[in-house]
Every structure is written in structure tokens, then in C-alpha cells.
């Protein structure tokens, strides 16, 4: 199986690529609609500004083929902004429409804590998770973000907390997404990526 890394010109593609290589997986970068149509598995990395990701998806005409692939059941993993893009909108760029695969919007974490939420934090499982199989319950993952989804609709299988609870891991049929960076989260992160590769195979 070949994982297609959606390379929209910004973000952490190199890190994700290296993490997959360390796990012995084959991956390929692409930003062409034709490649997304043919992909066996898709990974949307992303770090930085929500608007940069959404604009790049539209400018490169990737939105339609991506939504089509997800509807056909192609396994998908969104990382960080790749999770936030699944919602209807984000407070970070309210004028731009998200992929609208999950109801609700992404909002700023509360101003009562230091932002960005940067560093290692733990998860709180809300129901059994396929991505977190074999990952110890007290494992830490690396986060770097200021916006998050509040899980008002219960879509998350795991939450984390920084000033407020937020969706950390999402699993909805073939759609998987994590707010943290598994590619930067040491052993537990590698395990999660491995689980995704296994689920996608």
C-alpha cells in the first residue's frame, strides 16, 4: 500500500514522510487532483494557519477529489490542521468553508491558558479507539496549536485538555484524525501511525 501525502506547500510533510519511512511504509507526496483520485490511502498533514490549508485545497482543486475519495471509503488520516479542516468552519478564518464532514466549528482555546498549546499532553479516552490500540493510557503526545474542536457532538474517541477539553482523536468509519503530531510524538506516535497503516491496508 502507498500512502498519498497531500502536499499543499506548507506544513510538516517532511516530518510525516520521515516518520512513515521509519515504519517501513511507502509514501508519495502529491498536490494533483489526479493522484488523489487514485490514492489507496490519504494523509493530510498540516501546521500553521487554517486559511493556508483551505485556500491551498481550493486553489489546487483538491477539495472535490478529496471528498470523493473519502466517500468511496479511502482511509484518511488528518494531522493537526488536517483534523480541523474536517469541520464546517474555523474561527481562525470564519470566511472560509471547511470540508464539512463533521458538524460544528473549530474555535480558539481559552485565553486563560498559554497559547499556542505547545508541548506534550495526555489523552482521555471516551470510547474504544482503533488508532490508539496498544498505546498506553498515560502516553503523552506532542501538540502545537491554538485552535481546537470542542467535541460538542461527541465525535471524538479521545479528548485532551488545555484550558478546556477538546477533540484529540477522531474516528468515523474510514476517516481518522488527530490534533497532535504523531510524527513528533516518539514511540506512542509511531504506534498510532502504524495502527493507521494497518487499518488502511
Amino acid at each position, binding site marked *: 500500500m502507498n500512502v498519498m501525502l497531500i502536499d499543499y506547500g*506548507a506544513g510538516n510533510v517532511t*516530518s510525516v514522510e520521515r516518520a512513515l519511512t*521509519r515504519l517501513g511504509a511507502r509514501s508519495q507526496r502529491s498536490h494533483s487532483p489526479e493522484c488523489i483520485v487514485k490514492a489507496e490511502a490519504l494523509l493530510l498533514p498540516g*501546521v500553521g494557519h487554517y486559511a493556508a490549508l483551505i485556500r491551498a485545497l481550493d486553489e489546487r482543486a483538491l477539495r472535490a477529489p478529496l471528498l470523493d475519495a473519502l466517500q468511496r471509503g479511502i482511509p484518511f488520516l488528518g494531522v493537526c490542521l488536517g483534523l480541523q479542516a474536517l469541520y464546517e468552519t474555523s474561527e481562525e478564518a470564519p470566511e472560509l468553508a471547511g470540508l464539512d464532514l463533521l458538524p460544528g466549528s473549530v474555535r480558539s482555546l481559552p485565553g486563560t491558558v498559554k497559547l*499556542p*498549546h505547545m*508541548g506534550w*499532553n495526555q489523552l482521555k479516552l471516551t470510547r474504544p479507539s482503533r488508532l490508539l490500540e496498544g498505546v498506553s493510557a498515560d502516553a503523552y503526545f*506532542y501538540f502545537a496549536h491554538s485552535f481546537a474542536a470542542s467535541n460538542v457532538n461527541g465525535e471524538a474517541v479521545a479528548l485532551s*485538555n488545555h484550558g478546556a477539553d477538546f477533540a484529540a482523536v477522531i474516528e468515523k468509519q474510514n476517516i481518522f484524525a488527530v490534533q497532535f503530531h504523531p510524527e513528533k510524538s516518539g514511540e506512542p506516535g509511531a504506534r498510532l501511525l502504524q495502527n493507521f497503516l494497518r487499518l488502511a491496508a
Partner: protein
Amino acid sequence: MSLAHRIIPCLDTDGARVVKGVNFVGLRDAGDPVALATRYNAEGADELVVLDIAASRDRRPTFLETIRRVAAELAIPLTAGGGIRTLDDARSVIRAGADKVTVNTAAVARPALISELSREFGAQAVVLAIDAKRVNDHWDVMVRGGRDSANRDALVWAQQGVELGAGEILLTSVDRDGTQLGFDTPLTSAVSRAVSVPVIASGGAKLPEHFAQIFSEGAADAALAASIFHDNVQSIRELKQYLATRNIEVRLPC
């Protein structure tokens, strides 16, 4: 469940080797960056900072190659800095595998650099490094490796940097750097309480108690040190175990 306090080893490199010195004088070789990075990763380092202390144009390709080699081995975040003067400089270290860049002297000279980097890579990728030195009742920003005063208040500069788009402050006490007398608690506490972003304390660490103090009294979100880790004065694993016994939230290595 809460955010863990981070321990960050720093590799000062001169081209392909890690060097160390007191107050930038008397540099000596401290090892291969990839070997040290791998060791710190295994010991439970939360991040790694790699600085190009020479920051000369002709050695730049060597530094980028060092970043590439270190990034290939690491599964933790990597920050690169030293000599980042333009958006292109930052692009090249991020393409080489760094997750964040630090800017210091160039940002003091041209603060708009912070905004340019933040727009391109996001605030979480922009670390404003501030070298601060006590002068009477305040702290001055120092530039060019801590040698010259920028005649600017460190607290004010930290706040401006955050407004411009810095997502983190790497705060080095010029007074404490290289002394091993402990971090500068009043400085770190003042800056940490003045800004809304995480603050990494640097300069002066030796004992585990120094780290406990900078997290509890200094309100630091992370603490950085170099030579005490390179020389095995302090192991990261034991340091974290100690901090855990002091009820300071840390990510313990397995």
C-alpha cells in the same frame, strides 16, 4: 491531565560539530550532533534545539546538512536557529526538517521578520530568542551573541514579539549563562507573566533543583540546557524522575 514541563537539550554547532564554551569564548568540541540527538531522544528529551553559532554564509550548507541528519533520526520536535535573517533562511531550515525556527538579532534589527515568518509557518513555528541582561531595575535585550545592548527593555520586546506573531520565547539570561548557578528566576518569572505564549528558560542550569525552581517559581514552560547534558553532569532521565518526585508534571521516558 495537563501539559508537561519540557526539558530541552541544546546543541550549539559550528558546522558539523557540537561545540561549547562559556560566554561564547573558548569553544571546544563536544561531539557529533546526530549521536547526541539520538542519545537525548532515548533519554526522554522533549524537544531539541540546534543552533548554528558561527552562522557564517559559507558554512550554511554544512549546518543544513546537520539539521537534515538530526531530523532524520528524531521523532520529537526540532528547533533550528542561528543566522536566520530572512524568510528564505527560515524556509531552508524548515525544508531541512526543523519544526520551528528561532530568530534573535535579525528580529531586533527588523521586527517585521517575526510577522513574515509567522504568516508563512504559523506562530507555533516561530520562537523569539531573547538574550537579556540585568541593568539597574530592568533587563536589557542583548544582541550579537550577548555582546551588545540593543537598548531595549526585554519585557517590552517579548510582548511586542508575541504581538508580531512569535509563538514562543526562548529566554536566555546573559548574567547566568555558563555560570551553572541556576536559572534566572526573577527574569523568567517576569517575562513568563508578561506574555501569553510559552517561555523556555535558558542559562545557568546545573542541578535538578535549578529546574524544579524555574518551573515552580520561575513559571517557565520549558527549560533548556547544553553542556550539563553533553558532559553527563545531569542525565535527562534522572532529572525528569527527580522533577516527578517534586510533583512537577513531566513526560517520563519509558
